[in-house]
């Protein structure tokens, strides 16, 4: 299915136009095209020639040949289609079908050929489409130009007005001494205001109209497309298909009988699909805390912010009538806020989350993260509360900079998937890592050194790494950003049970799943 070249040659072998679609040397294509007229026999009723290496498919156009050079394995049916398409295009672009006419239209023909064949593959286009593509009349460009024009006009207006005002203020100035100064200022200011408003209006008008136009256009085109597509695809679904199917099965059976192993129900291997499986439990409760922390490079906390949420996801609508029993860790720094629909009294007194109106169910559904029930924040913390501290010591010695980094993790948390990313100066090669607890990787595109530790627990509360780079300013290595996750939280919030409000016998607590995690959202050493 590969077209090597589409060409127009004269009867004598003069190459008028040729466009190649695969890499081939000039001498090669010229040789192929020069050999062609000698191979064309007279009085044959077919229009293809096969040589040792290539196949020519051609069509005489008056005194010229329109010619496709293809591989010998190429699909002749498709190539003939392509050739037919090209032969319709040639008279569209060339005034006369002789050498002179083709010469004059050579470039237009090349542009048209490009629309029909891309990288040697046939495009399914019509003559009208090719013409449209080649004319390049773009609606959007016109709109763009209109917008630009209107912007220019607006700006001109503003300019004029401003000029007027400046003139006026000049006159004012000449009239009344120091009072004039102030008024001119204010008038100038208003002028600016005006301009910005009108500017904004102009652009908003522009974009608005553009949007409007687009939304007008789009439904029609898509509808038309849909219709055409449906009309095209409909026929195969007729009864003829069934017949074919039974035949197909026979074919398969006999193939199997002959020892071809055929797998009938083919499932894609699931290696690339690692997306979260849809929840199967009736209730899912997610406790998540996100950390936004900036540590100073010389120690101390520059900012600390922890935000936590508890969300509930209910699979079936019937299970919506429940209450959630929770238990908090009692951290005094943390303030809880309930969703407005939650009965606050009940929460404050019994740590039970339930709706204000018990006759209403919780919203249900699979999508999203569920319904947020509770939020909390913690903003004050001292250094001992921070899960991970990083110490970075760059030191220049001779022609090299030694950088040693160490981390220290607080015993409160077991951290997983820790990645410490150290920005480096743009380097050609990876830096020389002298020593490292864990793994490291150099991302040359972003020039970042990533130090990753799969798990930090009691066995490795502290660790270090050392690497060498060419001499640079030490500020290059900051900000160091850190990613990690942990399964215990600051709040220590836990769901202890679900209380069904309906369904009689309260003895049975419904099954639920609880997910708890602490995530570093923005954790940097600056």
């Amino acid at each position, binding site marked *: 299915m590969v077209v090597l070249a589409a060409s127009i040659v004269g009867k004598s072998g003069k190459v008028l136009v040729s466009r190649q679609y*695969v890499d081939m040397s000039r001498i090669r294509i010229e040789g192929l095209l020069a050999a062609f007229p000698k191979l064309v026999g007279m009085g044959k009723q077919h229009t293809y020639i096969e040589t040792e290496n290539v196949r020519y498919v051609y069509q005489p156009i008056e005194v010229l040949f329109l010619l496709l050079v293809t591989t010998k*394995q190429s699909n002749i049916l498709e190539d003939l289609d392509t050739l037919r398409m090209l032969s319709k295009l040639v008279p569209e672009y060339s005034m006369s079908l002789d050498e002179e006419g083709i010469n004059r239209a050579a470039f237009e023909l090349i542009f048209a050929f490009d629309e029909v064949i*891309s990288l040697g593959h046939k495009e399914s286009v019509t003559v009208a489409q090719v013409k449209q593509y080649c004319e390049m009349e773009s609606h959007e460009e016109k709109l763009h130009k209109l917008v630009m024009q209107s912007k220019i006009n607006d700006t001109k207006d503003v300019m004029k007005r401003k000029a007027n005002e400046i003139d006026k203020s000049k006159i004012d100035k000449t009239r009344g001494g120091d009072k004039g100064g102030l008024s001119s200022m204010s008038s100038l200011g208003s002028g600016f205001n005006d301009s910005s408003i009108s500017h904004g209006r102009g652009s908003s008008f522009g974009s608005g109209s553009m949007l409007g136009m687009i939304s007008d256009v789009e439904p029609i085109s898509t509808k038309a497309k849909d219709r055409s597509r449906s009309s095209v695809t409909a026929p195969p679904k007729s009864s003829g298909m069934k017949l074919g199917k039974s035949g197909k099965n026979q074919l398969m059976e006999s193939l199997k009988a002959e020892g071809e192993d055929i797998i009938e129900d083919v499932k894609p291997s699931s290696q690339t699909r690692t997306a979260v499986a849809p929840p199967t439990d009736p209730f899912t409760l997610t406790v998540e805390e996100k950390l936004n922390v900036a540590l100073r490079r010389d120690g101390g906390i520059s900012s600390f912010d922890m935000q936590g949420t508890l969300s509930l996801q209910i699979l079936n609508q019937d299970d919506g009538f429940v209450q959630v029993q929770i238990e908090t860790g009692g951290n005094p720094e943390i303030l809880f806020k309930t969703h407005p629909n939650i009965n606050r009294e009940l929460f404050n007194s019994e740590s039970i989350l339930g709706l204000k109106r018990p006759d209403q169910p919780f919203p249900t559904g699979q999508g999203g993260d569920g319904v947020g029930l509770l939020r909390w924040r913690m903003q004050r913390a001292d250094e001992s509360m921070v899960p991970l501290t990083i110490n970075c010591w760059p030191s220049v010695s001779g022609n090299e900079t030694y950088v040693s980094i160490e981390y220290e993790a607080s015993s409160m948390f077991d951290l997983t998937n820790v990645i410490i990313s150290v920005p480096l100066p743009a380097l050609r090669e990876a830096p020389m890592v002298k020593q490292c607890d864990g793994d490291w990787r150099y991302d040359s595109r972003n020039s970042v050194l990533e130090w990753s530790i799969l798990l930090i627990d009691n066995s490795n509360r502290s660790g270090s790494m050392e690497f060498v780079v060419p001499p640079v300013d030490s500020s290059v290595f900051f900000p160091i950003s850190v990613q990690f996750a942990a399964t215990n939280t600051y709040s220590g919030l836990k769901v202890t049970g679900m209380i069904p409000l309906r369904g009689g016998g309260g003895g049975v607590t419904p099954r639920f799943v609880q997910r708890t995690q602490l995530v570093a959202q923005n954790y940097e050493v600056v």
Partner: protein
Amino acid sequence: MDKSSTLLVHYDKGTPAVAKEIKEALEGNDVEAKVDAMKKAVMLLLNGETIPQLFITIIRYVLPSEDHTIQKLLLLYLELIEKTDSRGKVLPEMILICQNLRNNLMHPNEYIRGVTLRFLCRLKETEIVEPLTPSVLQNLEHRHPFVRRNAILAVMSIYKLPHGEQLFVDAPEMIEKALSTEQDPSAKRNAFLMLFTCAEERAVNYLLSNVDKVSDWNESLQMVVLELIRSVCKTKPSEKGKYIKIIISLLSATSSAVIYECAGTLVSLSSAPTAIRAAANTYCQLLLSQSDNNVKLILLDRLSELKSSHRDIMVELIIDVLRVLSSPNLDIRRKTLDIALDLITHHNINEVVQVLKKEVVKTQSGELEKNGEYRQMLIQAIHACAVKFPEVASTVVHLLMDFLGDSNVASALDVISFVREIIETNPKLRVSIITRLLDTFYQIRAGKVCPCALWIIGEYCLSLSEVESGISTIKQCLGDLPFYSVSEESEPTETSKKIQPTSSAMVSSRKPVILADGTYATQSAASETTFSTPAVVQGALTSGNLRALLLTGDFFLGSVVACTLTKLVLRLEEVQSSKTEVNKTVTQALLIMVSMLQLGQSPASPHPIDNDSYERIVLCIKLLCHRKDEMKKIWLESCRQSFVKMISEKQLREMEELKAKTQTTHAQPDDLIDFFHLKSRKGMSQLELEDQVQDDLKRATGEFTKDENDANKLNRILQLTGFSDPVYAEAYVTVHHYDIALEVTVINRTKETLQNLCLELATMGDLKLVERPQNYSLAPATSMQIKANIKVSSTETGVIFGNIVYETSNVMERNVVVLNDIHIDIMDYISPAVCSDVAFRTMWAEFEWENKVAVNTKIENEREFLDHIIKSTNMKCLTGPSELDGECGFLAANLYAKSVFGEDALVNVSIEKQTDGALSGYIRIRSKTQGIALSLGDKITLKQKGSN
């Protein structure tokens, strides 16, 4: 690998565009003029003139242009321009383009975006592409399918560049995402193609998760699916099972192109009989449903490939294949018959022959112009059938004998030679054939068919009744004697007058021809006349066909009649007991012979009888007058024996050919061995075949050059200058198919730096320099390599002249060193080839150029001389070895070769040994073009003298 070329435009050298004019036009504001100037600039680039100063002008004045055509032309310009320096580093000024390209990629006009993305597909320089990648990615989500389509292709091309995967680490993922949401069929195809080429397992996954929808997909997407399947199965044959279902579902697709591809894929994946059968069936259906001749021919090619690998399955389909005969195209019919003939077995022979017979009958009724030729083909096919399976001969021979009187001489000839062979090989049919032949003899109109028919009558009339009816038939056809009487005088002169001008016209136009035995002769007038128009006698049934032919002056026929009569009479003597009857017949025969002689010497005949025929008839008369047993034996038995020998030799030759054919299929020592029970069912051997498909593209683009032996290369080294010249140069000449590569080593022998050293080449003959020479400077005592490519477009001896021009610092004028001429040998272009005798003859008659070389050699043996010529011209001898056997003092042979450009070269050697032992004669060379005839002639003249 040379720089790849992306477009060619004819450039008329008559109106050279001046760089200055172009520059002015580009700087102006007139859009039309700018477009024109851009076109000219592109053409100049294509013509090898790199105008570096134009680049900056274009950057300054063309880049900002708003006009779309100018922007597109600009892209073409950028496509062609040299973007790297001599060391492969990207030129710094190319950064200037990047900004413009980025703007184009963000252009509000979707078509500008599209064509720019398409341009990026052709860009090879990673450094230029790199800053553009974010913009390319944005275009993946553009609203317009035209942009998305091209953006996907651009991503694919960039990803495929060296280090491209680093530019787009996540390209496959993004494309996969795009593919799942894409609606435009073309963009979808491109996306799938991208996954296929860059991340095969993703493409496979996508395919497998959409198995059910495949049959509803767009045609072009289905094509890529098939390609993917083929490629995957090649690398992982174990997973083949998953895909067969998809292929089979696609077999019922609506697009015939997809169906065709499916069948091909099926064949390549499996060699299970059902799969092959399904594929073959598909091909047959396409054959019937497609009306295009090209398609039919290629489908037939596919079928014949299947035939050679899976004959047993194809045999079942023979009747389907034969249905194609309904197409009026002769080439198609010929191919069909070729395929069908190979598939004949005992089981289907009757059916096949029936179809063929029906077709033959059809040709009688229809009035199509090519019917005659077609009938000939059919008759040959039936002939072949009958040879393979003699039992069908009886059913066809009578039908075929109806065509003895056919107005198409060739088919009548085929029929009669068929009859001749059958009557010898099938003794059972003899009686019925002879009766039939005698009944239809009067219908034979062609002067070339008659002798053969007469020979059969003479040889195979054995019983008394047959002999008698044979003699009477001949007599009847000759009509009343004498042929020429005084009373008829007025009439024959008239006819002779009528004939005279035509024959004289013929004589003037006639050319020397090559006879069947390879002799090169001016044909005798008699046979010449039978060759052309009067070969078929019209009307005059009353007077008999033999008579009519004789009256036109075909005395060769007369001699055959005489021989036949002699044979019949001799045989009659054996079977007839009554002496008087025999004597009566003898006198009648003698009378006929004498009247023929009389006719030959009378003025009524258009020309007098030739000596050969005269002698032969006289011999017959003598024989009949003195019948001896010895002579009888020669006439009645030896003749037949030599015919039997000829037939058996022919069969032997066919057997040998068959053997040779089977021999070629024997495995080479290093071939992979297929164990039938282990492997063939899985179609593995086909997968190895698939490798060839991959090579297909490489071969087509000329990437595939065989590694030549270095030692071989050294043989072709040519010294271009002398050792004492200031510049020493020598060249390797490598001749490729369409070009000659000169690799010139230049050594500076002086102690000065040579500046502006330039290798100037000029050519004679059909050679063309590809590039303009460049200037170099050469330090003292250093050497360098200069490469030059020369394009060749026809087979001809060519000469390359050249000189080396240089300047030195102290002398301001240019020094010139003239080089030796380089001769390009025609032998590099021609290779031995085979063509049929008939084709050789038609070409010989058609070709316009003849070069006649007189033999002038020291070789004294004819065979040795012929071998010498064959060896030195690299041609193939078409005349069979058995025909060249024996020492008879003369030799005639035809040689044939084909050039790489598809031209034919014909040579006829006719030599005779003189009494003094020297050889004399002529070698004639004919070709369509002057070049071959001349060059080959020169070559032969040169070689035949230097015999060693």
